[in-house]
């Protein structure tokens, strides 16, 4: 059985892109690739939690960041994790500018659609990582 890939969003709280990234990540782990993926609390990594560090060091990771500060990717890298793919919500938005949204607390229709697109892109990255791992599968 493949070792689950960790999908870690930044969950930024100030802008809609953080909410979009979080929804996309949970969509992937709960609906699109359940079993093949897991998520974990990014805040645990921020706190240097040993178990969290071991988890990111022992698995492939896909990060989803809302903005250019790239908190998810940076924190995973600082914890010694390997970022197999880094999805940027802003990049996806730039390709779908009609999905403009400012509803941060609860996603509106555009925000949800943008989250769906981010989830699709994340799944493509995950599938590529699975395909590329060959005999390395645990």
């Amino acid at each position, binding site marked *: 059985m493949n070792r689950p890939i960790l999908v870690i*969003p930044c969950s930024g709280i*100030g802008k809609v892109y953080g909410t979009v990234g979080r929804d996309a990540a949970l969509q992937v782990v*709960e609906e699109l690739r359940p079993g093949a993926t897991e998520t974990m*609390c*990014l805040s645990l990594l921020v706190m240097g*939690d040993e178990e969290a560090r071991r988890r990111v060091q022992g698995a492939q990771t896909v990060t989803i960041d809302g903005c250019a500060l790239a908190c998810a990717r940076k924190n995973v890298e600082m914890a010694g994790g390997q970022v197999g793919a880094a999805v940027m919500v802003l990049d996806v938005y730039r390709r779908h500018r009609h999905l403009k949204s400012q509803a941060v*607390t609860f996603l509106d229709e555009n925000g949800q659609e943008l989250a769906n697109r981010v989830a699709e892109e994340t799944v493509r990255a995950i599938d590529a990582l699975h395909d590329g791992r060959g005999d390395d599968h645990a």
Partner: protein
Amino acid sequence: MTMPEIIRKVGLIACGGEELPEGTISRIAARLVLEELRPLHTVTLCLPLFLAGGEAERAFARRQPTITIDGCEKLCARRATATYSGRPAVSFIVSEFIDYKGLRPPIHRRTLDEDEIALTRALAEAVAAEVDTLVEAQRSGGLGGMLSAQKGDGQKVVFADGTDEGLPVCACQSGGPPARSLQLASGAVQVVALDAILAQFAREGRPADASTLQDMLALVKIYNAVPPEAETDYAAALQREYAGFLARREKQA
């Protein structure tokens, strides 16, 4: 002319843990306080920015009293805030709040059901009540942390220099007061709310003397990380800025 009201700020830090439903509740409760319940008196920061960001982010809890909202007993928000920034004034733990209220533990991480939304709103109300307590403590001089602003229609904040900057919500400056470059002897730095602070002192008729500069530096330090060794440099730069500000103001008049 209506005198500007001093807007006191309370920082909110939610753990937002992705693995547990309680993390989702911590995040949404914080957003409800920011967006609906106490928009004028709260500001937030993404917790991961403590590590991924710089000193400006780590000074967050030193700028204003802070309330942390954690999903579980691991207390990531409380510990991160205390470790990297400053000791929180108040801490909430969602799991304990649920026990205390005798409510059903949440099961959804992505989309909350009706009961979970009711729980989240109850938590947000409790956080808002603590915001009121902290704001009142600041008002009575018990805590530092203020930004001078005039309330317009009760929702929008109009800064003292007359610029309308919308609601200050996010400490990363999306929707917050603008930062502007201040030229120090050691190089340029970005100073949050610099223009609003200069305008406030000018409106009060304060001269560019040592007493004013001391008060101005104290106000700048509330919203900016000023290293102790750079305070003299900041004071000199603020004096130049303020003298220039007064001269331009006089010319315009």
